[in-house]
């Protein structure tokens, strides 16, 4: 160790390789490496404009883009016991939790909101991959149960956005027990005759995939999302098979019959609005922000379904054509 390596080298490095990019200005696409201006990226819902890679999006940003006018009310989630195993690996579980809370500004790895999408009432739950890898612990289980109960109480669909590395190991068996617990939540919706739609985002793996994520009435995924039970590395290590191109990605699952459709994040809102209106037997959505002309009587409906809000309050819907599915 001398002054050249201790002092000069770091200074030179700092001059020539400014590695950290201020978070509020630029971000590098995880996939293609393009430098993206932050505003541009958030406007595109965290989808890279150059390669269409779907980066992780926070539940709040997702909800703001999803609910009508970006307005939603969060559904309270009962607080579980903190650290019931007294778990400690290289760090204490409590310490990891504090870090995750500080980093994300969220309390846990799943946010539940209610509001309207295309004027249809809906409850949404979204998993936050940046919060301890979105891992499914008791709080995530409680969130899904609270979301299902709220949807049953309001008699509306539940849309769930999954994103997780799997179960939260720090809660041991209690994280595993969220598989049956969340399955009970799905059964509440089934028995109430309410749609349960899952949107699988990158990545959805392990016990999350093997419970609530794969039990949707309709299953959607974002492009190129990794969706699996055992991850590709585990499979490669265990069976030493070469895995095909695109293995366990959304399009691959679509080809293998495990999904209904792969939908670009930009189009998710419209697709969901159309879908839930059909499943809830609501009339078709009116597009555009102008009220329907008085004279042009709409096609008579066999059964006038209750409309929560008049068409006049419809937000500006994107006029662009629906892209082909799949």
């Amino acid at each position, binding site marked *: 160790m001398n002054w050249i390596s201790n002092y000069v080298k770091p200074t030179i490095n700092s001059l020539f390789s400014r590695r950290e990019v201020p978070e509020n200005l630029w971000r590098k696409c995880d996939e293609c490496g393009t430098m993206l201006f932050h505003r541009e990226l958030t406007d595109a819902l965290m989808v890279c404009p150059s390669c269409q890679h779907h980066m992780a999006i926070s539940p709040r940003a997702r909800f703001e883009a999803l609910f009508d006018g970006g307005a939603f009310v969060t559904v309270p989630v009962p607080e*579980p*016991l903190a*650290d*019931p*195993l*007294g*778990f*400690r*690996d*290289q760090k204490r579980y409590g310490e990891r939790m504090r870090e995750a809370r500080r980093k994300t500004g969220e309390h846990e790895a799943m946010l539940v909101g209610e509001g309207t999408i295309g004027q249809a009432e809906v409850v949404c739950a979204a998993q936050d991959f940046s919060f301890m890898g979105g891992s499914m612990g*008791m709080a995530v*289980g409680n969130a899904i*149960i609270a979301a299902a109960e709220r949807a049953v109480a309001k008699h509306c669909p539940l849309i769930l956005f999954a994103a997780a590395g799997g*179960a939260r*190991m720090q*809660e*041991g*068996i*209690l*994280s*595993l*027990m969220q*598989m*049956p*617990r969340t*399955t*009970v939540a*799905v*059964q509440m919706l089934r028995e109430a005759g309410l749609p349960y739609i899952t949107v699988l985002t990158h990545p959805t793996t*392990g*016990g999350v*995939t*093997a*419970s*609530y*994520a*794969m*039990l949707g009435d309709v299953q959607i995924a974002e492009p190129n999302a990794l*969706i*699996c*039970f*055992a991850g590709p590395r*585990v*499979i490669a290590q*265990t*069976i030493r*098979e070469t*895995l*095909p191109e695109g*293995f*366990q990605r959304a399009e691959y699952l679509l080809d*293998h*019959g*495990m999904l209904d459709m792969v939908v670009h994040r930009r189009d998710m809102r419209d697709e969901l609005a159309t879908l839930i209106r059909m499943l809830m037997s609501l009339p078709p959505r009116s597009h555009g922000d102008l009220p329907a002309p008085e004279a042009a009587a709409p096609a008579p409906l066999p059964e006038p379904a209750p409309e929560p809000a008049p068409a006049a309050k419809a937000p500006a819907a994107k006029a662009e054509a629906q892209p082909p599915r799949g």
Partner: protein
Amino acid sequence: MQNYLDFEKGLAEIEGKAEELRALSRKNPDAPVEKEAAALDQKAHDLLRDLYANLDAWRKCQVARHPDRPHTADYIRALFTEYMPLAGDRNFAEDRAVLGGLARFDDRPVVVIGHEKGNDTRSRIEHNFGMARPEGYRKAVRLMDLADRFRLPVISLIDTTGAYPGKGAEERGQSEAIARSTEKCLAIGVPFVSVVIGEGGSGGAVAFATADRLAMLEHSVYSVISPEGCASILWKNAEKMKEAAAALRLTAQDLLKLGVIDRVIPEPVGGAQRHPDETISRVREAIASMLAELSGMAPEALRSARRRKFLDMGSKSLV
């Protein structure tokens, strides 16, 4: 030939010495060794009792995976009469990692389902080491449906490292198959009891351990992830499996305290692998008593109590 675990080395030496002495006395009947051999036997027995009274979490994992432990096929042979294996998922294949069918338990017809690991190279390969593919879980769903329609109780035996991590298994929907199997467990309106007889490995176990009553053998384990897997993720070092096993609290004793299981079935001294018959008869008693607790319950009452049980989980702490 007894298979000794690494922590049983001392025991192996003592038992080996006793065996040598006896071999000597067979060659030379006049040698006065019986007394000495008996003393060694006593010493071995005491050591075994002490070892097994104080197994730590990692040692319990080793015992739970012991190749000589009775497996599902052994239990089926001993616990049931008229066992009639049923096969196939009606979609793709018959998965021999999961055994199941109709049988009589105390003369009462039941549906039995269990993971089978196999006990020699040939049978281990046949049963894929107890690691089910989607077809195994879909067969379990079929069997649970059958039980539900014909009002037969379901008895499941859990013994798996986990669901099989393979290319075909993933392509054919391993996650979906496990999710549907867990869903079926929670939907059936018949008594459903389950026993972890060895390893309860993660989602692959949940798929048919989601029962009204769940018992575990004293030295069996039930965990969200294997200690090796947990160590390689959280410690970045698979060699830290002892620490991981302890941290995961995966023993029957801890799970009982957490309210995740309903009872612990004591194993004879030295574990199920040393006394399979006695172990199986204790499992029989536990199953009979758990079924008795559920007798006379209406389908709707069973279903809602089962769901309530899982919804309520997580209120007990170990600290």
